[in-house]
């Protein structure tokens, strides 16, 4: 069974956090201050979003002097992908059994 993807899904349920993650992916190691530039929110707000991403394992921070630089981590995304694949496969099997139980599948023209 795949690891619990809940924290990843929860973290990425927010548009702002998804945008921040995209920005970190695009820019590489980046500080909260850099991520705040041009944002309609404070550095503190950005830091809170980064903390959620960090808790979900989607980013990690490394301190250099007074600054923390954040880098994206693909591992939790792989876990989420695994959950999606496992869940889809499981339902394919279950629905096939349901079809057998109630009389079979009908011709389905739906793509």
């Amino acid at each position, binding site marked *: 069974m795949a690891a619990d993807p809940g924290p990843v899904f929860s973290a990425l349920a927010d548009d702002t956090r998804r945008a921040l*993650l995209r920005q970190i992916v695009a820019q590489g190691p980046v500080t909260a201050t850099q991520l705040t530039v041009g944002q309609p929110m404070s550095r503190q707000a950005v830091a809170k979003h980064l903390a959620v991403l960090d808790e979900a394992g989607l980013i990690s921070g490394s301190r250099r002097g007074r600054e923390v630089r954040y880098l994206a981590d693909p591992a939790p995304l*792989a876990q989420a992908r695994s959950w999606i694949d496992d869940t889809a496969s499981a339902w394919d*099997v279950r629905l096939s*059994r349901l079809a057998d139980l109630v009389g079979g599948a*009908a011709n389905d023209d739906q793509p």
Partner: protein
Amino acid sequence: MENPPDDLPDLAESVERSVLLDATPDLVRDALVRPDLLSAWLGEWSESDTGTSVVTDDGVRRLVERVVSHGADTNTVVWRWQPVGLDGELSEVTISITEEAAGTRVTVREAVLARASTHSSASNALSASSSAPAVSWLPSLLALGAVLALGAVAAV
């Protein structure tokens, strides 16, 4: 703010599967709510005073909390479930049936529920889940994962 790279297509909200069955809606409804019929296709389904559970194909017992058993239109069943004894996902399953000319369509949607914090037991998570919002995004992760993986390879 600089526009983020447009490399993340919108992800589906959840896993969704559909099948068209050569059966009446009534028969299909029964298969979605009767424990004996659920046991025949979903997994060993048991209901007792202590709760409802099902043992699925992977041998995992899941605690089940019915959220909607036969919706207002009697065509929707919703439950939340979570593996017992594992720090597994808490998810919500929505099954809807629609009558079509060629049969009855069954559509299953399963989405991980967001949680405020990790939990120590499935029952706690289930009882705490009533206010948890369902995941409302999903698909762009996959493209993002690919981008990150490529970056990892390039770094090597």
